C-alpha cells in the first residue's frame, strides 16, 4: 500500500506540474507567470531610459499567427540601436487561447527594448480578456514618458456588443485632465474610429476627445493589417494604421520631443 501511495503521489505531481497536461484550449491561469512581459514592467523600463531629444518608436500590430514573420521583425528591430520602444496595436493572439500568448511572448521577450501593448478584437475572444489582463495588465491604461501622455485603450466595440462603454470615454477624459503633467498625447488602440467595428454612436465624442486633447501627435490603430497615415476627419489629426508583420513592414515613428507636434513616419521592410 505504501508503494502504491508513493506511485500515486509521484504521478499526481508529474501530472499537475507539467503544463503540457492541458485542461482546455481556452484554459486560463495555467501559464507560468512572467513579470517581464507585463505592461507595468515595460513601462518601468521605458521610464528608466536615458532622456533623448528624439524618440524612435516602432509601431506594428496584428501579430496573430504570424510567428515566423514576428521572429524576423524582432531580429530587425534589435539590429536598430536607435529604437526606444515597440508599440503593438492589438490582435496579439488569434483565438483567445493561452498557447498563443506563450508563443508570442517568447518572441517579444527577445526585444532589446520595452514593448507596450493595446488589446485587439481577437484578444477578446473566449477567455482572451482575462488572459490579457493576467498576462499584460489592464485593457485601458496611460503613462507619461518624455512629456508625452500615452493613452492605451480598448476600442473593440463589437466584441462588447456595442454596449456604449467601449471605448470608455469617461476614462479617456480623466486621463487628460491633468494637463500640467504632460505636453502632448499619443492615442493607441486597435480598431480605428472610422471602422465598422467601432461603436458608431461614440465616434463623434471619441474623435472630439482626441482632437481637443493637449497637443495630440497622432492616434495609432491596427486591425486593418495595412499601413495608412491619413487625416480622415479633416481636423489635422493624424491617424496611423499600422501594418501587420504578415506584410513584413513596420512603421518607425520619430518624434522630436522639443517640437512635439512634429513627427515623421518611415516604413521599414524586412
Amino acid at each position: 500500500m505504501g508503494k502504491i501511495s508513493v506511485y500515486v503521489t509521484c504521478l499526481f505531481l508529474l501530472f499537475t506540474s507539467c503544463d503540457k497536461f492541458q485542461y482546455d484550449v481556452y484554459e486560463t491561469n495555467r501559464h507560468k507567470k512572467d513579470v517581464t512581459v507585463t505592461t507595468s514592467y515595460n513601462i518601468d523600463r521605458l521610464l528608466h531610459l536615458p532622456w533623448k531629444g528624439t524618440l524612435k518608436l516602432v509601431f506594428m500590430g496584428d501579430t496573430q499567427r504570424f510567428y515566423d514573420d514576428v521572429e524576423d521583425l524582432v531580429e530587425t528591430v534589435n539590429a536598430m540601436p536607435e529604437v526606444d520602444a515597440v508599440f503593438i496595436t492589438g490582435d496579439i493572439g488569434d483565438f483567445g487561447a493561452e498557447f498563443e500568448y506563450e508563443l508570442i511572448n517568447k518572441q517579444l521577450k527577445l526585444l532589446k527594448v520595452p514593448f507596450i501593448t493595446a488589446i485587439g478584437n481577437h484578444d477578446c475572444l473566449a477567455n482572451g480578456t482575462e488572459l490579457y489582463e493576467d498576462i499584460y495588465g489592464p485593457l485601458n491604461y496611460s503613462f507619461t514618458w518624455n512629456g508625452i501622455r500615452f493613452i492605451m485603450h480598448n476600442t473593440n466595440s463589437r466584441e462588447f456588443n456595442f454596449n456604449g462603454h467601449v471605448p470608455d470615454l469617461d476614462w479617456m477624459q480623466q486621463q487628460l485632465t491633468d494637463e500640467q503633467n504632460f505636453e502632448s498625447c499619443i492615442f493607441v488602440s486597435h480598431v480605428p474610429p472610422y471602422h465598422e467595428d467601432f461603436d458608431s454612436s461614440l465616434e463623434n465624442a471619441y474623435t472630439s476627445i482626441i482632437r481637443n486633447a493637449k497637443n495630440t501627435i497622432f492616434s495609432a490603430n491596427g486591425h486593418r493589417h495595412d499601413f495608412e497615415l491619413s487625416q480622415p476627419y479633416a481636423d489635422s489629426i493624424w491617424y496611423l494604421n499600422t501594418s501587420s508583420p504578415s506584410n513584413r513592414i513596420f512603421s518607425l515613428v520619430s518624434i522630436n520631443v522639443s517640437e512635439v507636434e512634429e513627427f515623421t513616419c518611415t516604413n521599414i521592410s524586412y
Partner: protein
Amino acid sequence: MFRKLKNLLVLTFLIRFSAFAGTDSSAEEKSNPWYIPDGLSIEYAGGFGLLSGGALYNWTKNSEIGISVGYVPTHYGRIWTTNFLCSYNLLPVSLNKNCELHLLKAGIFFNFNYGKNIYLMWPERYPKNYYWWNSSLRSGPFVDTELKVKPAKGKFSYTFFFQCLTNDIYLYTYFPNTRFIRIWDVVYFGAGIKVHAGTASQIRSRM
C-alpha cells in the same frame, strides 16, 4: 444533473457487469442493447477538462468509441466539454495472461466547449463569416499508449492510458510557422484510467 448522470453510469455499468457474471456469457453479451457501454473512463486533462469521464464502446475488435463530459473549474476558465473520441489499436502486444500493452492507438476526437464567449454559433453582433472558425468545436488527431491489466482476482480490468493530442487551431497555427513553432509547442497530454467488466478470457476476446 450530477446525481442523474451518476445513476445512469452506475446502472449501465451494473447491467454490463451482470452480463459477465456467468461463466459463459457470450450469449448474454450479445443480448445487451447497443447503448450499454463496454467500459467507463476517467481522464485528467487532454483538453477535455481538468477531469472528464464517460462511456466506452468497443466498435470492432480493435476500435473503440468514447463519449465523455468534462469540466474546467472557474479558476482555470470555467468551461464544460462534451467529447467524442474514436481510436484504433494499431499495436496490441500481449505481455502475459493478465497484461496487454497497447503500444500505439491512433484516433480522432471532436470536443465541444461551453463557456463564456465560446460559441457554437457566432452571435448576431458578428457579420456572416466574420470569424472563420467555430469557437466551440475543436477536433484533431491523437495517439494513446495503454497498459491493460486484469488482476487475478476481481471481475474488472483496468487500463491506464497516456494520450498525446493536437487540434485544428493548433495545427492551423503551426503549419505557416514551422520555423519558429516546434511540434512540441502544439501537442498536449492527457492521462487516465478505463475500467472494463469481465473475466480475463472475456476481456482478451474483446480486445
